[in-house]
């Protein structure tokens, strides 16, 4: 049976009508429940061991490397193929056909034969096939701006320029990280009973975490090959400043709409964390101190977060002003007295932008590991348990649910071209999701069911015209075209945060809001939209490397370090 989280807080959870708006979802920040942080806490607490059993990379950076992570019961290996890609083929776009490096996460420790088999398939990415021994498939390109700089500096025996590292933040950018049975990989359900992969995207995050180690090893190796006598390694503190870049486009956007019960569980966990903290009667001084430290570091994060996108530039300016305002408010004693966090949150609703409000929601979690971290166990979903339609439900009850969940959509004018301007479709090329202009391109015939508001409004009209005493079963036998949205409505009736409460085909839609929400749950930082539909991010920046994890905190890296006084 599907399990849902029952709140233990006395403060009410924020209502879906507040949380599930795209403007707010597009302002989420990483938090204690982000999947990268969940992963590193586990790796640390279970004393995972890491090794690099294979390193066969030549002076041009071509070859194969294997990184193995040994857990309490099982081992996993990142198999990395490193290539020498001509500059004119380097593209982050999903339509690319060659990459600087390609990866798979192997279930166990690969034999020579496995590596041979993978060498014929992994470099081809979507055009190759992997097997049920593999868990994920991914690729990365070098950052032209930083990669060569780092290699040549190291080869000269010098450290990379810290300002360059700070402003770019990564050596290579990944694009898609495919999991869940794609291209022949193992089905998620087949590994979801392993504790280490029960949570969402844990295998993908492990793959990216090991990929980061490979990237740093690669530049140090290339420097050594170039100048064996003088080359140095990156200083450990500076080394941690390198994350893994990622370029993410529309391919990710439909995910949230296609996994409503999963989305519900992510949001519900984060909202429950907020409600628990708002319910606290007081804040101890150590908790306030930790909050203030993370707040100061969030301010540095905002400073180091660059974007050339006009919307994000505005949001960043507001975020910086918000964080200054918040610091002043807290310094003036806002956390003294009763119910400090509830008062602070309510204050933020009146005084901060949505970007700042959501940064605060994340920051408030920081001092409260014991209240928050266990909620990560509620972020997976048994999606099968929500698939079947309850046909015995009276049609009038379905109607009531539509009014409650899609009330916003019933008020929209669905004859207006602006409200219908976009259509989601899948292109023949690489089968990637795209967003087109319904009234300008011949795409409507290929439309994907990613317009829940419009579809709910259409179903509502037909319900009104149907026999009032009927059941959902009778209605759907007559109206098979509403079966998809009827299913969604019933899921959202059980899972309050399952449905986005905005028009996903509006002329005003910003797909980057969908991307930001998902990537924030991953734990990404430095969202840098490159258009309204693709975004660059940084992953695992400042995190300890595998060989450092035993000695370092698995959580505090999520905010950049305070700059040392000069």
């Amino acid at each position, binding site marked *: 049976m599907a399990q849902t989280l029952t709140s233990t807080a006395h403060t009410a959870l924020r209502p879906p009508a507040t949380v599930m708006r795209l403007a707010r979802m597009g302002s989420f920040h990483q938090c204690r429940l982000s999947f990268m942080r969940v992963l590193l806490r586990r790796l640390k607490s279970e004393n995972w061991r890491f090794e690099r059993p294979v390193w066969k990379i030549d002076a041009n950076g071509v070859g194969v490397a294997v990184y193995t992570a040994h857990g309490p019961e099982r081992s996993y290996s990142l198999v990395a193929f490193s290539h020498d890609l001509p500059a004119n083929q380097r593209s982050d776009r999903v339509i690319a056909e060659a990459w600087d490096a390609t990866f798979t996460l192997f279930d166990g420790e690969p034999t020579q034969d496995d590596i041979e088999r993978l060498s014929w398939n992994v470099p081809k990415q979507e055009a190759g096939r992997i097997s049920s021994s593999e868990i994920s498939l991914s690729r990365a390109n070098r950052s032209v701006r930083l990669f060569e700089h780092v290699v040549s500096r190291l080869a000269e025996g010098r450290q990379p320029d810290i300002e360059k590292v700070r402003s770019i933040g990564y050596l290579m950018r990944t694009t898609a990280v495919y999991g869940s049975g794609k291209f022949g990989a193992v089905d998620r359900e087949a590994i979801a009973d392993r504790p280490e992969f029960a949570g969402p995207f844990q295998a993908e995050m492990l793959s990216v975490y090991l990929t980061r180690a490979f990237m740093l090893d690669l530049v140090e190796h290339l420097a050594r090959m170039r100048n064996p006598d003088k080359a140095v390694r990156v200083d450990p503190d500076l080394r941690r400043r390198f994350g893994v870049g990622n370029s993410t486009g529309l391919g990710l956007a439909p995910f949230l709409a296609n996994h409503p019960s999963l989305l519900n569980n992510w949001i519900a966990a984060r909202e429950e964390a907020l409600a628990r903290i708002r319910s606290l009667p007081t804040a101890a001084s150590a908790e306030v101190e930790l909050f203030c430290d993370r707040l100061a570091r969030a301010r540095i994060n905002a400073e180091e977060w660059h974007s050339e996108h006009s919307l994000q530039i505005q949001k960043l300016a507001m975020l910086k002003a918000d964080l200054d305002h918040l610091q002043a408010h807290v310094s003036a004693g806002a956390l003294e007295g009763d119910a400090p966090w509830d008062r602070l949150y309510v204050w933020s609703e009146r005084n901060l932008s949505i970007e700042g409000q959501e940064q605060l929601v994340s920051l408030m979690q920081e001092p409260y590991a014991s209240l928050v971290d266990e909620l990560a166990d509620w972020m997976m979903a048994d999606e099968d348990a929500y698939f079947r339609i309850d046909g015995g439900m009276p049609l009038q009850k379905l109607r009531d649910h539509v009014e409650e969940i899609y009330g916003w959509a019933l008020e929209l004018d669905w004859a207006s071209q602006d409200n219908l301007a976009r259509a989601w*479709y899948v292109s023949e090329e690489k089968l990637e999701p795209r*967003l087109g202009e319904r009234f300008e391109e011949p795409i409507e015939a*290929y439309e994907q069911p990613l317009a829940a508001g419009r579809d709910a409004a259409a179903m509502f009209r037909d319900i009104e015209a149907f026999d009032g005493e009927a059941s*959902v079963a009778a209605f759907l036998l007559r109206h098979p075209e509403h079966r998809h949205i009827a299913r969604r409505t019933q899921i959202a009736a059980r899972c309050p945060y399952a449905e986005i409460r905005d028009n996903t085909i509006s002329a005003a839609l910003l797909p980057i809001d969908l991307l930001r929400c998902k990537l924030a749950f991953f734990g990404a930082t430095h969202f840098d939209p490159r258009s309204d539909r*693709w975004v660059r991010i940084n992953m695992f920046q400042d995190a300890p490397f595998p060989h450092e994890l035993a000695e370092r905190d698995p959580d505090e890296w999520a905010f950049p370090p305070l700059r040392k006084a000069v």
Partner: protein
Amino acid sequence: MGIPTATEGRLMSFSLNEIASMGKRAARGAGYSWGLAEEAGKAARWLAAHDLPGPELLAELLIRNDGREYETLAPVIGDGKWKAGSDLLCPLITGSALCDRASEISSGRKVELSAVAMPMLLAPFAAGVAELTGTPVRLSWADAELTLTAEGIAIDGSTTALTRRAENVRCEAVDQACPVKAAKIAGRTVDAETWTRLAAFAHRTYAPATEASRLAGAGAGLSDSD
């Protein structure tokens, strides 16, 4: 292409996720509504997970029903007897309607289905009734008897009986569970011809690529190679 077209004569291994996704796209391509296409993907996957010919039967069905109107394939529900408008009953539409009536079936309503195409495709839906209500359900036709429980399936019948193209089927709740075979979450092989057939239907759902859509649809923007 994301999901490859298998080469002729070869068996290829696919994950259950790929089978479900291909089944859904193919059914949509053959003209089913999205909601029914989701049922088709789920059904193909369920059968594959139970080592039964889900993708194969679905491909046969889609070829048969391609271009036919929903009204001709959907059950007209009479007094215990369900009959198609003017054709063989479609097991996806009929199965969905059965599953939507799970509580009626579990509380004893017997349904006689006249002439169902590919009746084996009803099994995942009968399993849905069992999952929803906890009541075992039996599907039977001339020389086959299937018992579905929330845990799996028990089959009494030959391979040929299971791959019949049309049968009258009886669907009813049964009192007693029997030992069943449970699903196995593992990829399975599908023959090239089947996969190619499904892929051809799925292909109808993909918009032809144009340079304009490549730029606009996927999001042109600042340089991505710096």
